């Protein structure tokens, strides 16, 4: 390859990468007691009140749309009194759930990749693109009147690695952060977090590719601290004793899914990348969404034997690959959303298709009895019925839009890969990159 060709190839790569970086998957989050449900798509936040079965109107003191760029993370606090949203516009919005009023807008210097609320509802933590986790004290006044509140203090840092997920342990004692460099870090969440979280409890090391999602499996019946689950680009879900950092069990999802039967292709396509995890049924059932599987995979999690095993794959017909999943505390329902914004070839004037589906029967789930206990609810049977779908999806006849869902699925695959898998440049490509960068520098100097 000539240098020119290489340069062109790199520019192409960068272009794709840039586009991939702008694609943002739809997110879903549900109130712990299922009082309300939220979907984020692009910069838009859609909330439905499941108790009053009506759309929620968000009250943002700033007026106008709350976010101006893709939302990358949303979550409810454990007690269900707070909700947080954050993303590429470098803003974190903290909402009071009873009134859906935005009580705080914190600005970050960098794009925000993950957000989490401490169990006592006193602190919000956010992770930025540079691998730093910041903490905001909700009790302090902040610069409340000021639209740009910069009151976050640094809590901890992953050295220059994108943080992909941020979670508090069930007992609230630890904050867990996962990154693109295969790493999961367990840090003691201190009594005075504004002074930083310096005590690292453990590292959970075992993933051989980026970590994409974290979840805790614990039983509300006993007082044990529970276990950590993680999923990632190596197409595995892993079970950890997070106090010691030891790996208890690994479930290789890739090998369970005959992805065209060709393992090497699986790897290359990244089609069995684990994108989300959701723990149901008092910690005994783990629902897994995978890059290109139409449906969800269920794993049995045995908290006593400390094992993780494949239970079944639940296919969903009609192009449905969940981009995010959610369930309430010991709920019977698993909510799933599929959608993406910023698709490379999508018409910017057309609304992004978003599809929401619900699986019911989790409470009665038993891996011995067949699938019949579980059902994929018809649109009319979904909690809030068509009203909730109207709000969360933005339209009812998404199904007609089959083509765009196929398109979404394809684009997401690329996006995920570009976003998280490190670009491997060949030596020659790297040399050209360096050169061209220096060229630019020189030019600037001359000017």
């Amino acid at each position: 390859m000539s240098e020119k060709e290489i340069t062109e190839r790199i520019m192409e790569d960068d272009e794709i990468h840039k586009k991939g970086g702008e694609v943002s998957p739809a997110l879903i989050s549900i109130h712990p007691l299922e009082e309300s449900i939220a979907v984020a798509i692009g910069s838009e936040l859609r909330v439905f009140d499941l108790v009053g079965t009506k759309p929620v109107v968000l009250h943002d003191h700033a007026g106008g749309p709350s976010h101006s760029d893709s939302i990358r993370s949303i979550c409810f606090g454990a007690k269900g009194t707070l909700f947080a949203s954050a993303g590429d516009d470098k803003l974190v919005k903290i909402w009071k759930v009873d009134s859906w009023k935005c009580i705080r807008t914190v600005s970050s210097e960098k794009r925000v990749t993950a957000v989490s609320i401490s169990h006592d509802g006193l602190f919000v933590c956010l992770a930025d693109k540079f691998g730093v986790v910041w903490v905001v004290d909700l009790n302090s006044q902040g610069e409340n009147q000021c639209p740009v509140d910069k009151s976050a203090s640094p809590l901890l840092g992953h050295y220059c690695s994108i943080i992909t997920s941020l979670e508090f342990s069930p007992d609230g004692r630890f904050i867990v952060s996962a990154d693109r460099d295969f790493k999961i870090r367990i840090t003691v969440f201190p009594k005075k977090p504004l002074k930083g979280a310096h005590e690292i409890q453990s590292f959970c090391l075992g993933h051989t590719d980026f970590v994409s999602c974290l979840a805790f499996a614990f039983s509300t019946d006993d007082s044990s601290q529970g276990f950590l689950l993680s999923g990632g680009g190596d197409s595995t879900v892993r079970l950890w004793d997070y106090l010691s950092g030891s790996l208890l069990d690994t479930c290789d999802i890739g090998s369970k899914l005959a992805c065209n039967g060709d393992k090497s292709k699986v790897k290359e396509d990244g089609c069995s990348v684990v994108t989300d995890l959701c723990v149901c049924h008092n910690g005994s059932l783990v629902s897994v969404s995978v890059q290109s599987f139409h449906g969800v995979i269920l794993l049995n999690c045995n908290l006593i034997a400390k094992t993780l095993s494949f239970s079944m794959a639940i296919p969903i017909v009609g192009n449905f690959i969940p981009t995010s999943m959610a369930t309430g505390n010991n709920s019977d329902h698993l909510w799933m959303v599929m959608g993406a914004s910023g698709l490379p070839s999508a018409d910017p004037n057309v609304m992004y298709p978003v599809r929401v589906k619900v699986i019911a029967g989790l409470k009665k789930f038993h891996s011995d009895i067949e699938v019949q206990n579980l059902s994929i609810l018809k649109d009319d049977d979904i909690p809030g019925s068509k009203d909730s779908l109207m709000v969360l999806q933005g339209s009812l006849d998404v199904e007609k839009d089959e083509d765009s869902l196929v398109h979404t699925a394809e684009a997401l695959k690329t996006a995920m890969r570009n976003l998280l898998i490190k670009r491997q440049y060949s030596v020659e490509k790297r040399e050209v990159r360096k050169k061209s960068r220096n060229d630019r520098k020189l030019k600037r100097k001359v000017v």
Partner: protein
Amino acid sequence: MTRNGKQMEMNKNSSHHPRKRFYRARAHSNPLSDSHFPIPISPSEVDYSHHYPYFYPDGWNSNVNSNDGTASKIQFADIGCGFGGLLVSLSQLFPDTLMIGMELRDKVSEYVKERILALRMSIPGQYENISVVRTNSMKYLPNYFTKKQLTKMFFLFPDPHFKEKNHRRRVISPHLLDEYAYTLQTGGIIYTITDVEELGDWMRSCLEEHPLFQAVPEHELEADPVVKLLSGATEEGQKVARNEGQTFQAIYRRIELED
């Protein structure tokens, strides 16, 4: 990366000591750029029997499985070890302690490897306790060491990264100290030295403000034979000494949080 014929020959006949000029490398490296070298998934994945064959006569697995598998674990790490002068001096001072240098620059770490092999050849039975890995310590320390494994960490004449926007490249920083505290045993010691006053102030204040570190008192420093090596054992230190430059030390102990 490819070595020339002369070197290959030299390596075969390893009792010749490697010469630095064959290993000329860039003066500074950017710890932020993603390098391409193998990274162990976790500390248990690293086969240290290759590094310390004398201490693992039966290979790696046999040692791991024996009940005293902890007996020979690395205790000292020289971060950004450069050409390895400190390791060579420490090797004599603590012949039973395993120690490792971590170096980002490929050629420099190759040099150290050859240097150690040559020393082992010329004085059999010695220098068996030192070795080197090429890695970015700022990213991958937990991939090499378990919690509270180390008793000493060295940061001698680290790159200064003067510009404010490059401070996050510094090898001592508030966030990285959290990882060093994780890696060090309670009572373990961090040794830092530099000839750049500004960096000296920075390292001292990072350590001073960190709740898990406490300055080692003066009288203990005087009794510690390691302290005497800081300014003169490494190549960088010798350069500074030749130019009669001033040096700035900060030596701190890993303590437990008071609650």
